[in-house]
């Protein structure tokens, strides 16, 4: 990635708006992802249980195994690419201290845990749904923070 090679991104008149655009789109993707999941898949335990396991009383069919696996597969791909890109920008635009490492670890661990808890909920026990919900919100919040903080540093922080 070219932006990992340029010495001072904030002084580069071309890379600065390119990175700002990238961060804006990552921010919009993360927000949209919350809304789309809210309406199509569920982001709270009750809605998630209905989507995954259906409900006989409401005549809702459970999600088929092949639909679930397709959803999970696509989800993993998008998350890994988004988070790798966001991490690369965040590392370049924030001071290389302990808090930077902590944020990267938190966002990645919660994202991976959310992906692992999803099949565990579907195949093993619905008690993993709560873990999925917690991890889903954790990684989204930290990723949104990373995008905003990187954006702030790109334009306003002079001390890095």
């Amino acid at each position: 990635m070219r932006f990992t090679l340029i010495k001072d991104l904030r002084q580069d008149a071309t890379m600065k708006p390119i990175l700002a655009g990238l961060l804006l789109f990552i921010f919009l993707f993360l927000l949209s992802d919350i809304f789309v999941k809210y309406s199509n898949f569920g982001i709270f335990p009750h809605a998630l249980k209905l989507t995954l396991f259906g409900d006989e009383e409401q005549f809702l069919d459970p999600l088929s195994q092949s639909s679930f696996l397709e959803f999970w597969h696509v989800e993993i791909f998008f998350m890994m690419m988004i988070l790798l890109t966001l991490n690369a920008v965040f590392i370049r635009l924030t001071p290389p201290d302990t808090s930077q490492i902590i944020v990267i670890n938190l966002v990645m661990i919660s994202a991976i845990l959310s992906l692992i808890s999803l099949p565990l909920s579907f195949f093993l026990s619905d008690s993993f749904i709560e873990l999925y919900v917690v991890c889903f919100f954790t990684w989204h919040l930290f990723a949104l923070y990373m995008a905003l903080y990187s954006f702030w540093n790109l334009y306003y922080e002079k001390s890095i």
Partner: protein
Amino acid sequence: MKKAYKHSILYFLLFSLLLLSSGLMLFEHKIGLNVNSVLDYYLGNQDKYTAAKSMDGVLKIVLPHIFAFGLFSMVILHFLLFTSSRNKAEIKIIVYLTFTSALLEIAAPFFIILGAGFFAYLKIGSFVLFESLIIYISWLLFKSIIHD
């Protein structure tokens, strides 16, 4: 390499293993990991009441995979440039093998539909080879991050 990059790549490798696992589960569930089930999936089977796949149908499944295979292979392979083994002949072979196996995996269904049943072997072989190569690349990167 910065410590933060090392952490980031390590997590990327974990994501990659999850992607491989989900791909394997999907392949096993939808197509099956033996030659007859691959042929049944693409050519249909009257006894199982499954219809043959059309060229359009396969193209719809293949289209996002062309982009995803290319991007994923490029991203994971380019990390090898930051390891001490970047100039070894082995790395060049791995790069060619990864893209070739991805290409064969994507192209094989079209040949099966056109009547070349032999490509069912190639479909399974290229899938297994691609997954094995990604695991091996992940291992090389993991070793490099830990030791370098």
